């Protein structure tokens, strides 16, 4: 039986001072039911009772994820008008469009928790909500598009596959579709880099240079080391997070290290090697100081990405105002549209 989410008032009828104590009892019972659902690996749905902290934590995480999809359109979109073949251009346009679509599902998932998209976008513009720090690096050559697909989408999938089983239903369901599309993007990125790596010496050099620049930021994308991760313990107890940052990082390196061999490209980590005893790859220590610097706003493109999004949003204000004015004048047509 699922919690109905309805509050029962019966206990407070006779004694006016019994209300507070009764509310506490009810709250405790809700909390117990909520935790029981999570512990039995069931999903929490939007109408179910949930602790405020759970709601806030999910809004923060889903919004950050949605913002990442939207800001992530910029570095790759940077190459749409210069894509070197019509086939690559079509693939890239479809990919950037998928990212906009992911942003849409995720904002919708956040809306089920009682915030609206406009509020979240404002928080992004005010710098009070973040997006993935990886998108604060520039895409300097065509090979960067392939490197982002292979490494950045690879790291994103590593992070997101466990989220398909996260405790909040709308987020988990959105992630199922997002992960399918991300897996496709990762293969496309790999294939694009493969073509460059096995092309002319100049193309190979372009691919290697892109991997040199994107490798470490991608390894850092899995988050700060476990000892310093601020939200991890509570998120784990709530069934939002299932594996630690360091576990996910290991999983990511284990996935991409053998792929690099097939690509014929060398990751810029002299300590990267297979460890027979552990059954995993060993790898060097990421520069978490740099991650902190970029997250806190001093990466190469933080200011540019934020300014681009804000400018597009402000330039579109008159269009959104016109749509609202039209809807007010023509309620029937607008409802049907």
């Amino acid at each position: 039986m699922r919690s109905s989410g309805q509050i029962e008032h019966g206990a407070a009828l006779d004694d006016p001072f019994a209300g507070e104590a009764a509310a506490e009892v009810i709250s405790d019972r809700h909390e117990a039911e909520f935790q029981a659902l999570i512990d039995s690996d069931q999903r929490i749905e939007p109408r179910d009772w949930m602790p405020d902290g759970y709601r806030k934590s999910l809004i923060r995480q889903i919004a950050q994820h949605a913002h990442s999809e939207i800001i992530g359109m910029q570095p790759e979109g940077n190459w749409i008008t210069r894509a070197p073949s019509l086939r690559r251009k079509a693939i890239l346009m479809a990919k950037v469009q998928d990212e906009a679509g992911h942003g849409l599902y995720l904002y919708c998932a956040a809306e089920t928790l009682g915030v609206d998209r406009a509020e979240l976008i404002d928080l992004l513009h005010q710098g009070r909500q973040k997006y993935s720090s990886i998108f604060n690096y520039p895409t300097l050559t065509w090979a960067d598009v392939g490197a982002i697909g292979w490494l950045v989408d690879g790291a994103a999938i590593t992070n997101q596959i466990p989220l398909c089983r996260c405790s909040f239903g709308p987020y988990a369901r959105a992630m199922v579709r997002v992960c399918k599309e991300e897996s496709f993007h990762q293969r496309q990125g790999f294939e694009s880099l493969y073509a460059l790596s096995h092309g002319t010496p100049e193309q190979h050099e372009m691919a290697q240079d892109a991997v040199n620049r994107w490798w470490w930021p991608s390894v850092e994308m899995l988050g700060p080391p476990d000892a310093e991760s601020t939200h991890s313990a509570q998120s784990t107890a709530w069934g939002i997070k299932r594996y630690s940052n360091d576990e996910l990082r290991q999983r990511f390196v284990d996935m991409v290290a053998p792929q690099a061999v097939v690509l014929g490209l060398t990751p810029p980590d002299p300590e990267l090697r297979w460890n027979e005893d552990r059954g995993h790859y060993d790898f060097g220590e990421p520069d978490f100081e740099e991650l902190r610097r970029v997250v806190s706003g001093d990466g190469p493109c933080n200011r540019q990405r934020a300014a681009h999004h804000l400018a597009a949003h402000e330039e579109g204000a008159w269009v959104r105002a016109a749509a609202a004015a039209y809807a007010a004048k023509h309620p029937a047509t607008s409802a049907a549209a």
Partner: protein
Amino acid sequence: MVAGAAAVYALRLADDCLVLSHRLAQWSSRAPTLEDDVALTNIALDLLGQARGLYARTAELDGTGRSEDDYAFMRGEREFINCLLVEQENGDFAATIVRQLLCSTFQLAQWQALTTSTDGPVSAVAAKAAKETSYHRDHATDWTLRLGDGTDESHRRMESALAAMWPFTAELFESDAVAREAGALGVGPDPATLRPEWEGYIRRVLGDATLVMPESTWTPSGGREGLHTECFGYMLAEMQHLHRSFPGVTW
């Protein structure tokens, strides 16, 4: 008889699609709503697919065996034979929507007529494109209504956009030896025959949007002979730079 009329006719269609696709794709991450970012890219992708199908057919018809990338990336400005309207810069969202309304209404009429083309591959592209383009026209129509009949500012911006784009519509319906030959061979409609349907639809939508159909004494032309507006050279320079920097490689 015009030598190679069918090939030139197909290439005109293809260039219109490619250039308009490129312009719309420039909106990526810049649209006024996330939904429209998705929609504009989607339309751009449809147009790119149409262009690719038509370049493949052109290569068979003109016998050169060129690849789609040869057509897109290795021709200069004077060799592109798209109409001038599709190459006009995006401007604000109103300008893009007006350009899109004028183009998609023309293209829809053209694709519908092309579904009965005597050229099998062209009619196959047209059958798919007609379905896609009816959505493009719906999207442009919906926004024309909202912006025309929205706020004072949106109405004013739509008037300016119409004034700027309208002169380039005359060229869409120009008839020449290639168009007449294609019409006579049953390859595709002479564009001049599409005007009444186009004008009827545009007049109705603009009226519903409280906008007035402009008149223009200036009717620029030349795109079909490779004489373009200045903005087109910059677009091609950006689009072709990377491809041309690495001659002959595989991407």
